[in-house]
């Protein structure tokens, strides 16, 4: 069989599988736009244009102390989802279209209805173990972080089974912009079957599910689940600011070092390297991710001396 014949066959089979899984090319990319991480973010590039909405994303801390960093990353992601949340069902699309045509100007209930999608709630499920260890999400802090605390519905679950049940119930619901679940242990409750249920529920409703496995430090590669994406999060030293006077520098923006362990994006993403850590920062004012660029940028070539430094040293010695 010729080379092109094989690839055509594989392509056909891939399409069949995608159709069986309900994520055919027509359904996935056209009707469910991905949510971008932020303009020009390299995470977007790697994941084929951002995070899928109706999907399960897992967030695993890289070290035991990084659980809060992982939950902060989840909060940032949910802020992204909330920013671009629009009612997903057909009727609202229809209403929106009618509104565009200015046919139902009089019918629209209130001037605030345009801001209604912004008030989409975020359901945050917190297991008691996580709460004891790392505290509760703090409203004023979340507000400064770019996430409106008024839209947060905080659910305290007793154990992992309860958390997963809540997660599934919340994901089945169309109203939340995102559902975050912080789990303490995943043992025996979270497996391929459980994650598959969540994926199906999320795909059905279009509500993204973000699962933070607080205690699974360094276990991101061993976890087997049906999740669409899996991130490993390490807290990274952000760009520190110079102090006004003497003394140590000031802490900078929230920043993480993100490793994409798993991404079921298909051919859309490119250059995905599982071993590569990607430094990102969170811009809390614009509520978007940015690539953390090293502050010490190399000088532009025209400002450099035309001879390399070593040679210059040699020159100096001669002179």
């Amino acid at each position, binding site marked *: 069989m010729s080379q092109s014949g094989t690839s055509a066959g594989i392509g056909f089979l891939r399409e069949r599988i995608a159709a069986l899984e309900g994520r055919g090319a027509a359904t996935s990319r056209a009707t469910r736009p991905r949510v971008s991480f932020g303009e020009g973010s390299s995470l977007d590039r790697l994941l084929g244009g951002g995070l899928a909405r109706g999907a399960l994303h897992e967030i695993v801390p890289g070290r035991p102390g990084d659980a809060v960093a992982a939950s*902060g990353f989840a909060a940032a992601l949910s802020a992204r989802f909330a920013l671009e949340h629009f009612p997903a069902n*057909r009727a609202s699309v229809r209403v929106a279209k009618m509104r565009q045509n200015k046919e139902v100007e009089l019918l629209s209930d209130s001037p605030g209805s345009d801001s209604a999608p912004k008030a989409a709630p975020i359901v945050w499920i917190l297991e008691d173990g996580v709460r004891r260890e790392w*505290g509760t999400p*703090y409203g*004023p802090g979340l507000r400064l972080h770019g996430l409106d605390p*008024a839209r947060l519905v905080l659910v305290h679950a007793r154990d992992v089974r309860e958390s997963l049940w809540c997660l599934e119930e919340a994901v089945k619901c169309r109203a939340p912009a995102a559902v975050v679940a912080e789990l303490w242990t995943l043992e025996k409750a979270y497996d391929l079957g459980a994650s598959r249920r969540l994926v199906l529920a999320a795909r059905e409703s279009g509500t993204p599910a973000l699962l933070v496995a607080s205690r699974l430090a360094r276990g991101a590669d061993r976890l087997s689940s049906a999740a669409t994406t899996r991130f490993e999060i390490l807290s990274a030293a952000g760009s520190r600011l110079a102090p006004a006077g003497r003394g140590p520098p000031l802490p900078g923006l929230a920043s993480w070092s993100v490793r994409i362990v798993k991404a079921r994006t298909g051919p859309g993403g490119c250059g995905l390297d599982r071993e590569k850590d990607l430094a990102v920062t969170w811009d809390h004012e614009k509520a978007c991710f940015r690539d953390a660029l090293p502050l010490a940028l190399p000088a532009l070539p025209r400002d450099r001396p035309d001879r390399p430094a070593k040679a210059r040293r040699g020159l100096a010695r001669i002179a």
Partner: protein
Amino acid sequence: MRLADARAMHPSLACVASDPQAEAETLGAIADWCRSFTPLVALDPPDGLVLDVTGAAHLFGGEAKLLALIEARLEARGFSARAAIGSTPEAAWASARFGELRILEPDLDEKELARRLGPLPLAALRLDRAVLAGLARAGLRRISDIVLRPRAPIVARFGPALHDRLDGLLGRAATPISPRFEAPLYLAERRFADFILRREAIEATILSLARDLCTMLARHGEGARRLEASLFRVDGLVRRLEVGTSRPLRDPGLVARLLCERIDAAGTDGEALDPGYGFDVIRLAALAVERKDAEQTSAIEPVDEAADLADLVDRLGARLGMRRVTRLAFDARHVPEFAVAAVPAAASRPAAVARKRPARKDRARASAVEPRDTEKPSLAALPSRPIRLLHHPEPIETIASVPDGPPVRFRWRKVLHEVAAIEGPERIAPEWWRAERAATRDYFRAEDTEGHRFWLFREGLYGRETACPRWFMHGLFA
């Protein structure tokens, strides 16, 4: 008489140590069971129950039949009970314990009541033993002895309680009973000649009861905020399952679903719904209702995300308990741990409120917490509050270069952190207008070499409030 003497007289005497708590529990269980006769059941410790059967007796074929039914059923369960019906709780109490008459008709006047209850001993008035002894010494033994006597000397000698009781007994004064549970506003129930056992049957019953209840609610233009399902087991045990809702609810499907969720939750709590020999009465009641106007149903597919969320909150609340599903409510206090409180999501609707309320007031409240919020944020403004706040500030060991300077390294949860970057202090004074004494806190945002960011504070001003200030970890940044 001592136990030993009693045993000497009757060697076969069975002795059981008294257990007041178990007795009270049993009485409570009997009271719950009695709610299948009337919703208004009051406990009368240690050994009595008061049932308000006004308007309920005809359902059981009259008062005599109701009495016989209650007594027979209790006897079948192994209790020996005496029941009596009277116009007042006191009259019923007296005739149940001391009288020959079991039923005092409702239309008896005071004189007739006095004639019928007159022969009873004064103990039927529930008096103190000391008062009874005093009365006995005075030669007063029966109720008829005091009915016609002048009131003043008796009150002067034995206190007002005696005549209060007498007034109650003869219907001169109305005494309330305090029912164990409030009477529900709407109620639907099914009685089964043959008890039901299976889960599917129970769920179907609840659904059909919910339909009845919602029809009643719809007729009055109301919706339920608190619902209760009572399942009466054949052997007298009663299971009550209560659910709250975040909005007035009138949809039978949703009501039934919430209650079934609650049954599931009871299963995971360990006290699963055990049907035993089956349930013979299932009752659904709306305990709290609110006005709910008929909704406009739209021709196109309904887009009610708020309702969708309310249903989710109810469902989660039914399974986990309403207190575990919360929203954050801001409080205008500047001490970090009090600035925000978790309130049950079902009770508050901040999303709806925030949309209606003018933004100015909201912002004014927020500004008490976060003044930066109102201004145009500058690029240099970094989050000054953590995203996670620990339950209690945890003490840490710090090393600082100067006593009131920022720490150079600190040990938290047995791990040593080297401070690489630090900002502070942000001084937060205690609320001096409250009574409790607290020290000033200096908050620092610190970042260690690994990039973890912490929110630390030093309690007490060095030199002014305390000689050796203590350090605490209070929160964590992302």
